[in-house]
C-alpha cells in the first residue's frame, strides 16, 4: 500500500465532509432555549397556579419535562426533533430522559427483565456513575475545607 496511516489520515480529512456546525448551532440554540423556556413556564404555572413553593416547583418541573420526553420518545418523535435540534435536544434534562427511554424501548423485544430493565441505563448509567462519583468528591472536599 502506498499510503501509511499518517499520510492516509490527511487524505481522509480532506475528503470527509464537515458537519455543518454553524447551522447545527443555530438549531441547538433554538431547541435548547425552547425546552428551557418550557421548563420555566411549567415552573411558574406550578408556583402561581398551584401554590407550590419554589424549591419544590423546580424539581417538579423537571419531572414533568422527563415525562414529556418519555412520551415523545415512545411515540417516536423525539429522535425526529433530535435530528434537527442536535445538542439542543441532548443537553437538557429531556435528553437524559431520552437516553433512558430509548434503550428501554429498543430492548423490549428481548424481554421486560433482561431486555428493557437491564438495558435501561445502557446510556444513562455512565452519567450516574460519574455524577454520583463527583458528587461524593465534592461532598468530601466540603468536609475538608469547611
Amino acid at each position, binding site marked *: 500500500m502506498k499510503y501509511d496511516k499518517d499520510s492516509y489520515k490527511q487524505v*481522509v480529512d480532506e475528503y470527509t465532509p464537515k458537519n455543518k456546525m454553524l447551522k447545527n448551532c443555530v438549531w441547538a440554540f433554538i431547541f435548547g432555549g425552547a425546552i428551557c423556556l418550557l421548563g420555566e413556564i411549567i415552573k411558574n404555572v406550578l408556583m402561581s397556579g398551584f401554590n407550590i413553593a419554589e424549591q419544590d416547583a423546580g424539581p417538579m418541573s423537571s419531572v414533568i419535562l422527563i415525562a414529556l420526553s418519555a412520551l415523545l420518545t415512545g411515540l417516536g418523535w423525539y429522535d425526529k426533533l*433530535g435530528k434537527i*435540534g442536535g445538542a439542543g435536544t441532548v443537553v437538557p434534562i429531556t435528553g437524559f430522559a*431520552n437516553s433512558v427511554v*430509548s434503550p428501554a424501548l429498543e430492548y423490549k423485544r428481548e424481554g421486560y427483565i433482561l431486555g428493557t430493565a437491564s438495558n435501561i441505563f445502557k446510556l444513562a448509567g455512565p452519567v450516574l456513575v460519574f455524577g454520583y462519583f463527583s458528587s461524593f468528591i465534592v461532598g468530601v472536599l466540603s468536609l475538608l475545607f469547611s
Partner: protein
Amino acid sequence: MKKIGKQTFSIKDDVFVRSTFTIAGKKEGEGPLGKEFDMVVEDDLWGEKSWEKCELKFQKEAVKNLMDKNNLMKEDIDLLISGDLLNQIASSSFAARDLQLPYIGVYGACSTMALTLGLGSLIIDGGFANNVICATSSHFCSAERQYRLPLEMGGQRHMSAQWTVTGAGAVWLSNSGSGPRIKNVTFGKIQDLGVKDANNMGAAMAPAAYDSLRQHLEDTGIDYDLIVTGDLGTVGKSIVNKMFNEDSSSIEKKYDDCGTIIYDIDKQDVHAGGSGCGCSATVFGAFLYKKLLNREINRLLFTSTGALHSPTSTLQGESIPGIAHCIGIEM
C-alpha cells in the same frame, strides 16, 4: 493451477449467473432503482415481531422466490452460501433453517455478495456442485441497533455516515445454461490504514477496494466496461478515484459505487450513501445483472467491500479493517 498473477483465480469451466432475485425496503424502493427490484416491502417489520426476524424473512423470501421463479426444486440446489451483518450471522442461519438446503454460512460484512459469488464459482469450477445459490441481506434497524445507538435516541448523524440498506439479494449460479459468466475471482487482502471512525466507513474501506481492484486489473489485464464497488459511498468513492489517478491509470469514467447508485444522494437524506450487505446485493441483482443481460455492458468488475470490525473491537480502540473481493463477469 487455475491461479493467474498474484491473487486471482481464473474460472476455467462455465459458471453462469443464471438468475437473481432482489427484495428492497421502503426507502430503497423510493430511490432511483425503485422499479428494478423484484419486490419492495414497505413495512419495516414485514409482519414479524422484531427487525431481526424481519431480516431473516427478507433473505429467506429472496431465496424462495429465486427458486420459484426458475422452477428449481430443493434437490436441484447443491449448496446455499450466505452471510449477513448480525452477530453469529443469525439471519442467514435462521433462513437456512427454514430453507433446508445444504448450507455454508460466511461472514464478510458488506463484502458478502462478492465473497459468496466467488466461493460459489470456485466450488462449481472444482466440479463439486452444479447449482449454487448465493444470498445475503441487511436491515437498517437491526444493523443500527447492533453497531450504533438505539433508534429512538435523539441526535444527528454525521455527514460522512452511511445508511444501511434494507434489502436482500439471492443469485443462482450454475454450470449449465446461458447468460453472463464469472471468469475471474480475486479475494482481497485486509487493508487497515488506521481509520477508527465508525461514522466514516467509506474511508475505512477505500484502501482495500483500491488494493483489490488494482491487483485484479494487473493480474487479468482485462479492460472492463464498468467497475463497481459495493458500499464506499461518496467519501470512499472519491478516495478510490484519487488513488487510481495518482497511478495515472484513471478509472473515473467507468467506475461507480453501489452506495451512490441505490439512493438519490441529494434528495434522500442518506448523507454519504448506502452501505450494508444488501447494498451491493440488491444493486447487483436488480441493476448490474440486467445491464449485462441487455448487453449494455459486456465486461463487469463487481467488487463488494466490507468493514470487518465488531462493536467490541471499536470500543477497545481498534481501527477498522477493510476488505474487498472482485468478481470479473463477462457476457
